[in-house]
């Protein structure tokens, strides 16, 4: 979410340059090392195979056990590999020389120095200004992409699971509605959903900011310019309070683990969520009173003309449109996966649950869904990856996530080759991290086989 913490936090977003220049350069260095290592691996394997082959042929020179060289599968394989490698190297060298000639011809800057130059752009709702460097701008773009993903993927997962279950409902109305939703949104391009959501639903559907809709006494503001929500604002002792909250979270987790252990040993109801939340709320309340109200609420407000927002937590319209549209689109795919996985759970499981007189909710919560999720998870990872890649569609509605930001930088005549490389590198890293996390969770989920 796009927030500017007002007051003391204002300067905050500007000074915390955590991982700006260094992150991009680090990724580039990793890429270079990976390319070199791959080359070394391939050539090394090839040389090793050749040495092996020569050794083998020398050893068995006298017995006629081996076929002649031109019929030896290993020799043919090596020859084919050398041929392919030569073609690849030649093509790359040719393209590279063309590229260098053309780059020199049009005077293209091929160094990465531009990362430290002023970017010349500003991002809505962001302290970043035109004088900040390109790498700072890129970092803000990366963070905006991450904001879309962090909110969007859990939302799509929840909506998709509910719709997938609704498609299997015994209630005719619910089932038909869910089917209609899935069959419609699954078969239109995500870009259509995004553009309609942005231009029709959000721009036309909400009032202008002068006539903004302010429910609940102005604690919420909805207009076609921004959504604003109340937020919390740090006061004195805020850092200490944050630390205590973190410790409280750890304590809550420990209590939950302890309750689970008690449940496993004695079988008495664990109520671990209740216990955990209770611990956390207790610690937080005590700390709040002891530290003398370290946080205050911040109410969003509009100025006299009804244009400039201040206070509260503010959400940019294109962000809201992009995330909503992608959630609606991705949820249809997730719903299909969830439905298929539920159907794949063995019928005997459902019958056994019925025989134990579990309620419909209990049957889903304790018997069907845990097993279905195990089946659904690998294809779900693919949907999460698709979601993160589809967030680049923001370029069409001008939300400054990384792709759209890079496009803006092209407009400031920043060099395209390096920027495209950085952009691709960012998405590759994101895909790698997401699928690595997904595979890790998947390993935990799967039944340990014999």
């Amino acid at each position, binding site marked *: 979410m796009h927030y500017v913490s007002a007051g003391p936090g204002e300067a905050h977003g500007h000074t915390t340059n955590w991982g700006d220049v260094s992150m991009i350069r680090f990724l580039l260095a990793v890429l270079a090392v990976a390319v070199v290592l*791959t080359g070394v691996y391939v050539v090394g394997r090839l040389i090793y195979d050749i040495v092996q082959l020569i050794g083998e042929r020398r050893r068995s020179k006298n017995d006629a056990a081996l076929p002649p060289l031109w019929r030896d599968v290993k020799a043919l394989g090596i020859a084919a590999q050398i041929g392919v490698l030569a073609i690849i190297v030649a093509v790359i060298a040719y393209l590279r020389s*063309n590229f260098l000639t*053309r780059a020199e011809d049009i005077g293209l800057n091929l160094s990465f120095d531009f990362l430290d130059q002023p970017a010349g752009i500003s991002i809505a709702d962001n302290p970043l200004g035109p004088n900040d460097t390109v790498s700072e701008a890129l970092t803000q773009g990366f963070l905006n992409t991450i904001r879309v993903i962090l909110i969007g993927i859990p939302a799509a997962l929840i909506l998709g699971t509910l719709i997938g279950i609704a498609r299997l409902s015994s209630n005719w109305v619910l089932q038909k509605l869910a089917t209609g939703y899935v069959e419609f949104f699954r078969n239109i391009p995500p870009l*259509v959903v995004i553009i309609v959501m942005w231009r029709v639903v959000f721009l036309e559907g909400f009032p202008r900011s002068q006539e903004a809709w302010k429910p609940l006494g102005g604690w919420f503001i909805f207009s076609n310019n921004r959504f604003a929500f109340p937020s919390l604002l740090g006061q004195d002792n805020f850092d200490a309070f944050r630390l205590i909250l973190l410790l409280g979270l750890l304590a809550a987790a420990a209590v939950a683990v302890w309750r689970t252990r008690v449940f496993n040993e004695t079988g008495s109801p664990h109520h671990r969520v209740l216990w955990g939340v209770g611990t956390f709320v207790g610690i937080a309340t005590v700390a709040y009173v002891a530290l003398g109200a370290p946080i205050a609420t911040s109410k969003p407000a509009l100025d006299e003309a009804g244009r400039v927002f201040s206070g509260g937590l503010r959400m940019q319209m294109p962000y809201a449109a992009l995330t909503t549209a992608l959630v609606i689109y991705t949820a249809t795919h997730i719903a299909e996966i969830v439905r298929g996985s539920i159907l794949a759970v063995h019928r005997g499981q459902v019958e056994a649950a019925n025989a134990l007189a579990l309620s419909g909710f209990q049957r889903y919560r304790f018997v069907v869904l845990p097993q279905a999720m195990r*089946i659904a998870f690998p294809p779900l990872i*693919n949907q999460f990856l698709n979601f993160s890649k589809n967030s680049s569609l923001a370029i069409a509605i001008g939300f400054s996530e990384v792709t759209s930001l890079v496009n803006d930088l092209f407009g400031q005549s920043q060099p395209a080759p390096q920027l495209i490389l950085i*952009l691709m590198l960012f998405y590759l890293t994101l*895909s*790698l991290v997401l699928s690595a996390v997904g595979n890790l969770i998947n390993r935990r989920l799967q039944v340990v086989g014999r």
Partner: protein
Amino acid sequence: MTGAGEGLSADDVALFTARAEAARPPSQKLPPGQWAKKNLFDGFANIIFTLVFGFAGLAVLFFLAVWVIDADYEIVRRNLRIFMIGQFPKNELWRPAVSLLVVMAGVGFTSGALARNAHDLALEQDLPTEKSSWVSLIRRFWAVIAVVIFFVSFARTLTPYLLVAGAFALLVAGRELGWAINAAVRARAIYIGATIFLLSMLVIAGTSSLGGLSLGLITLFWVAGEVGRRDLPGGVVGLTIRWGIALVAAIVVYAIEVAIPYDGFGWENWGGLHITLFTTVLGISLGMPFGILLALGRKSDLPVMKTASVLFIEFIRGVPLISLLLFSNLMLPLFLPIDFERPADLTLTIVVITGFSAAYIAEIVRGGLQAVPKGQTEAAQASGMSAGSVQRLIVLPQALRAVIPAMVGQFIALFKDTTLLQIIGILEFLRVTDVANVQPDFLGKGLAPVTYLFVALGYWAFAYTMSKESRRLETKLGVGVR
């Protein structure tokens, strides 16, 4: 690397769905009262659901219907031609028209021939089969037919009506011809269909270089297939003769086609639904051979081939299509020799889309290769086949047959992805809405939703029909049920 590992794919899940649905007991016909009690008012929660969602659903449908009936469709009527074919030069309009008619005849012919081939095969194996009636075909393709009629109803002159009627007539005639023609011709139906398709799309209304390239590629495989039917000496000699003849034929066809000088009729100005369908079909068909090669490379034991394939596939799959399109627009021309002019945007895009779909097709084909039992390869090797023949005659046919539904899925995905072409300034179907809404007569009239509805229906009808067809193919081919 970025894949979901060894787990189940979405297709496996779809398979579970199909199987579980087949295993369900047939639904009983209940009298209306009991049916309503069982499906709508069974218990307190159910009654609440029925009332709340029923009311919400009816409200949405009602307001949607009122809006659809009340809307002002003048903007669509005035821009229908741009929606369909973009800014194609006015004095060359007969070209896309003829191209459409020829394509429809070709599609009809190929589908008829393939249906007959499957029919004959089923008869041979004593399986139940019958020629699908026109009624059943209309039921299967109702969405596309309805949307075509909806689209053409906006026409203000007679020509579009005649064109659509002619296209339908040729489709029917082509299908009957394909069904009736002799087996030798039917065996080559795919090649004939592809040639007709490219002839019409690239030679009648396209550019000579791309047309020559595609026709050359088809000739290469077709001639290689034809020569392969004869008795050839085995080993390297036979292979050389076979591919040598094919290569010469392909080069001759390419040279003849390129010798006819034309730069493409309005190639820079192509647009609308035409470009959307064209890019999708071309992207998939050009990506297919590369995709199969990449899949074989990924399965190979040879480290050079394997590493190159894995790197290419995972790189393409790891980045969004937009970044690749930006690459095609800004970077690709820089890799051409310095004395080359910058090709048209559409040409650059097709290059990138081909690579893009090749990577995804490779992963699909890899899934199919893994599904072929190892015994098949071993039996082929035991009977003394060469490594190439094992792949070509035993493994690939089974693998490719198993992945047809997934391939249709990839086709749908690419069809939806072509909307991104608007980012690099190509006037594809969705982008026409912007063009229409900034015309002086419609600017600021709030008619954008009407155009979005029109476009969304177009996308929906094609994608919905294809996904239904792919599910039908899945059950028909019995994928994974061996």
